């Protein structure tokens, strides 16, 4: 077990897979000489050469499609898209190609493609660079999406994504790259799509993912001081979703609070709330509640930016209200 940054964990995972399997390659803007905008591919070009670590022109749709075509011929490409905002150019390659070819070919072509991209609201990047678009990709059958929140999961899940024959999106978070945590490269990993209970509590099941996980844990600490105990679930995967773990937790707490950075309207939380109430309605002491981003493009101004997405205090407030008012939404 060693302490490392999230980006370093991803870098270790890339290195391990590239060393183990020469069909693994990575490509994207500045992944080679420059080492990746968030340093994830640092040092790999020197080690594996430019055919395996390929700097591409700024052509997201075609270089993501290159990954699709190469995967059809048995390579295991890892495409880095610099930010999820630019993935909109590549939506054709992701949605119409990667997600459809295995099916449309009647199962003839596997799609061992991994697409890494960071997303989320970082620090004052403006509305075009502060998007959370996971809901767009969750809605596409045939795609899987991992959302690691810790360095350990970044390490495990990237390795698992590369080994999977399904197309897997690894959605990283720009503010997590420099978060630190323990990474054990020896212990065996839970399945890529399994949710993990990060904290046990009796009162409310708080479902979170990606950067909302540390905020939920922080809120749980604060709430514990006043006697409200949260179970905090880290989803780890948005497609598929581990419903069993969520439902089992709600069976214990009878309340459910969903935290997401994405805009509230038609976001990931909407899917979570809808499906969980279908399964848990008769277990609930209160309506399922969401803490989510505001339905507004992210403002540039730092104060407004922070106000537009959930903070730990918003989770605390929502939990208090759920307990005090028995869940009735104000």
């Amino acid at each position, binding site marked *: 077990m060693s302490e490392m940054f999230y980006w370093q964990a991803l870098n270790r995972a890339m290195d391990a897979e590239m060393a183990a399997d020469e069909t693994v*390659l990575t490509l994207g803007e500045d992944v080679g000489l420059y080492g990746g905008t968030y340093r994830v591919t640092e040092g790999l070009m020197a080690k594996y050469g430019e*055919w*395996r670590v390929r700097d*591409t*022109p700024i*052509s997201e*749709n*075609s*270089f*993501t*499609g*290159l*990954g*699709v*075509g*190469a*995967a*059809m*011929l*048995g*390579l295991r*490409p890892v495409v880095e898209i610099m930010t999820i905002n630019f993935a909109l150019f590549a939506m*054709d*390659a992701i949605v*119409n*190609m990667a997600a459809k*070819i*295995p*099916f*449309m*070919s*009647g*199962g*003839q*072509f*596997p*799609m*061992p493609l991994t697409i890494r991209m960071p997303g989320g609201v970082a620090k004052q990047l403006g509305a075009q660079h502060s998007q959370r678009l996971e809901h767009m990709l969750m809605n596409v*059958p*045939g795609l*899987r999406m991992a959302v690691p929140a810790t360095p350990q999961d970044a390490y495990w899940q990237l390795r698992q994504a590369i080994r*999977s*024959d*399904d197309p897997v999106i690894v959605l990283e978070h720009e503010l997590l790259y420099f978060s630190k945590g323990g990474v054990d490269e020896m212990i065996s990993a839970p*399945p890529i*799509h*399994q949710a993990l209970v990060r904290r046990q509590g009796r009162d409310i099941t708080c479902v979170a993912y990606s950067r909302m996980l540390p905020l939920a844990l922080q809120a749980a600490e604060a709430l514990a001081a006043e006697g409200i105990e949260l179970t905090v679930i880290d989803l780890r995967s948005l497609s*598929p*979703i*581990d*419903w*069993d773990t969520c*439902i089992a937790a709600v069976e214990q707490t009878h309340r459910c609070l969903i935290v997401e950075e994405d805009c509230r309207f038609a976001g990931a939380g909407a899917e979570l709330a809808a*499906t969980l109430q279908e*399964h848990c309605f008769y277990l609930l002491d209160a309506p399922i509640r969401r803490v989510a981003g505001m339905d507004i493009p992210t403002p540039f101004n730092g104060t407004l930016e922070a106000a537009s997405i959930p903070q730990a205090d918003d989770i605390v407030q929502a939990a208090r209200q759920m307990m005090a008012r028995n869940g009735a939404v104000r």
Partner: protein
Amino acid sequence: MDKTQMAAMLRDMLRARAFEEAAAQAYAQGHIAGFLHLYPGEEAVAVGVLHAAEPGDYVVSTYREHVHALVRGIPARQIMAELHGKKTGISGGMGGSMHLFDQDRRFLGGYAIVGETFPIALGAGYAVAYRKLPEAVLCFFGDGAVNQGTFHESLNMAALWKLPIFFICENNHYQIGTEIHRHSAITEVYKRACAYGIPAEKADGMDVIAVHEAAARALVRIRAGEGPQFLELETYRYRGHSMADSGSYRPNVELNAYQANDPIAAAVHEAEYPYPGIEAVAAASANSVTRFADHCCQEGHLDDATVERMRREVQEEVADAVTFAEQSAAPDMEDAWKAFRSNRRFETLMEVAR
């Protein structure tokens, strides 16, 4: 080009024509649904190019790909069954007319979103170059596709990394119903390749021998490591864009002119009087008409009876394919889930809870 190869090409053109006309009929009868984009008029392109390729080469195609698949060697039965949406289809009824795939024959699919063939070919070309193999990737696209961003993105990367990709533009002059002078600032498509330094030429897409020779030349350069090559083939589709389109926007005079230059009629003619290849002409020397005539005699020729027999045989083959498709079972939802989960060799994913 020898007589055997010429006969094989003629047979493929006749099969293609018969197949597409049978598909049109099945569509009119309601046995085939959805979109159906037919190829009559363009046969010289698929036949000329694919007969110049090797079995180890990869083929990426468009939504008008039945004939590419047929010439590539996918049995007519399996293509026709796919058009009918049947379980016995080459994609198990999950792809349909626009999505024929065959891993064994390296047929990487028909793509129904204009411009997708470029990145797929780019990736295939990258994989071939990565493994240092002597194979080429044939990328078919229409004149409408060259205005898509992926055209420029992918040609740039293909040229940059010298990938073994053969870009083949089937210029039938129409993007659905918009004539090329109304959709492209540069209507001589091959000239666009010069923006990326990719060697390009143009050939008569109604003349199967001209197509074959140009394709063979390009493939020689690709296999010599000269990177991507570009070939524009001017051709014409006799029908509308799809079965839902009568093609009424096109002037009759234009259609008649192209039909007068029908590639099959031309091929039949050339098969009867063998057309010399470049090497044959060179060997015969410029002043020796007599020697050239002798050469043609030695080559032998196909006669009318042979051509008629070929016609009959391909029509029987296509009729058999239609019967096979009609009598095949439809896939069920279990088959659909199986195709969907085809990637999960060892992974067990959670499905809907409870």
